[in-house]
């Protein structure tokens, strides 16, 4: 912290005049330097390695490196393409269902008069939204897995239920996606001013009309943003799926893990890198949609 400069206390107070900024600028900059260097090294270098490895091939005998689109092309073919499509389908489906159910629950909580219910629901959402990964997979295996408690009680197997399938995975993903949606959408639902509803009412609008012309347009960015966030979360999820289904559902994260953990032909690592690049591009697209939407909804709802 010491690099962040001794300020002479005779200088003006808040705000930072240009003079002060000029004098302090270079040295406060030093305090931010470790962070920038760190992210550059520990984040930038691996990212660079992904991008570089995805578009080049190194000849093992001569050591020569040349540009190639082959890995990216392979990552968009056959089982790899299948895994990308599988991931996108699963993420889109779970984001849609999770989004709708999350809004319903959030609306039920927000319109409730009980402050206790409200804080309990929001705290629980915060916890459950973070209950991903391996522990969640095991909780579901114990519940609706082959010898799970509920499976035995309700005899789900005879109904054709399998946890280790696309549907099973969707049910598990919803366990953390719905609370995530509740957390994201509750402030937006809170921000719908009752006065707006009264104004609409006074002008003779029905409830349906209010939602169609006021409520939903105001909520739309938050709803879309929530959907996109859920999509991104489901898309990036790996641990739950790895602990649960192994390889029986084609998902891009599982394919990358397979390719990385060896037992495959050489050159496969580069396909893993290309798949990683594909994922980053899709996730980047998701964030590029999400962040402006979040800013837009913030403008209405504060």
């Amino acid at each position, binding site marked *: 912290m010491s690099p962040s400069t001794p300020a002479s206390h005779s200088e003006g*107070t808040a705000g930072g005049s240009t003079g002060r900024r000029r004098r302090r600028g270079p040295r406060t900059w030093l*305090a931010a330097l*470790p962070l920038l260097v760190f992210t550059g090294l520990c984040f930038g270098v691996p990212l660079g390695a992904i991008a570089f490895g995805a578009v080049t091939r190194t000849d093992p005998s001569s050591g020569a490196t040349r540009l190639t689109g082959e890995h990216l092309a392979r990552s968009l073919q056959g089982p790899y393409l299948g895994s990308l499509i599988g991931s996108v389908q699963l993420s889109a489906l779970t984001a849609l269902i999770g989004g709708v159910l999350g809004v319903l629950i959030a609306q039920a909580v927000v319109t409730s008069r009980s402050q206790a219910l409200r804080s309990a629901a929001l*705290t629980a959402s915060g916890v459950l939204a973070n209950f991903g990964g391996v522990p969640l997979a095991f909780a579901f295996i114990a519940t609706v897995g082959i010898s799970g408690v509920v499976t035995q009680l309700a005899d789900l197997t005879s109904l054709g239920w399998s946890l280790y399938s696309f549907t099973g995975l969707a049910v598990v993903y919803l366990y953390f996606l719905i609370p995530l949606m509740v957390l994201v959408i509750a402030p937006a639902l809170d921000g719908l001013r009752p006065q707006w509803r009264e104004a609409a009412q006074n002008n003779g609008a029905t409830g349906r009309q209010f939602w169609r012309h006021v409520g939903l347009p105001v909520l739309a960015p938050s709803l879309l943003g929530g959907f996109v966030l859920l999509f991104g979360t489901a898309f990036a999820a790996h*641990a739950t799926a790895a602990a649960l289904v192994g390889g029986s559902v084609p998902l891009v994260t599982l394919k*990358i893990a397979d390719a990385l953990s060896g037992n495959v032909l050489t050159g496969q*690592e580069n396909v893993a890198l290309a798949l990683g690049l594909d*994922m980053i591009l899709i996730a980047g697209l998701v964030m590029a949609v999400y962040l402006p939407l979040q800013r837009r909804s913030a403008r209405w709802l504060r």
Partner: protein
Amino acid sequence: MAAMTPTPAPTAPDTGAAPAGTTAPAPASRPGRRPRPRVWRGAVLLLAGAYFLVPLIASFVFTVHVPGQGISFEAYTQLLSADGFTESMLLSLGLAAATIALSLLLAVPALVAVRLGSPRLRPVVEVMCMLPLVVPPIALVTGITTVLRWGPEHLSRTPFYQTFLAVQNEQFPVVLVLAYTVLALPFVYRSLDAGLRAVDVPTLVEAARSCGASWPYVVLRVLLPNLRSSLAGAAFLTLALVLGEFTIASLLGFRPFAVWIVTISGAHARMSVAVSILSLLITWLLLLVLSRAGTNPATVSSAPRTSPTSRKES
């Protein structure tokens, strides 16, 4: 979305003086429709409660009820003596402590500096801190393995090689600390940014300096206490992230807690579920402590809000 139209209609009238945010159900004006929102809300909350509680209850039943033998708490009592439990837990806790220390040491000076004197640096710092959200951990780990492979392939005759070996030390894999710090930065940034927003840093610093405080004193006794709750928030979110992290550790071949659970699940299914329940309880406690950690309501409410986008391991 269409399904949510039913409720608001009845709640619409007569909310007159109700403060924004807590819309009370409609009183007398439409007595015939009053019960509707309650039924609707009750049904939704009941179903949601069932969906979220059943797996927890069923998991607990699974761990204590052995078919044919009745109730037994063996899965919990044998945990401490289980092979590898202590080592993996200690490794995870050590990694978490190092990650928290490193991320705070990097982020606090940078953010304070941005507040104090370099506002033009702010977008740079923000983008640097938020970018890891865009990169799924599994993609990051492909990059890390590639970089780690450069060690033996290209650098074996340079001093860097020793560094590459050192960061992959089995006892304490520094490379995991580095990767986790990258993953944790967005949450640390948000939490600290929210905390700094609530404090007028330049005025505080000027005031302390005018009273003759030295810089270390200003930072340790003036700034950090004001940021207490957001520091705690950042630390807890990081702790939860590191304890649950599976992808990076397993693909790099290390065995912290989450990886250990998976390795024992084949032989000790009951125990792996028991540990899963315990880790949920631990996360729950952490978040409860987190929401009580500060006295400042603004930062308290902002803390849980940082969790939604948390890149928890899923």
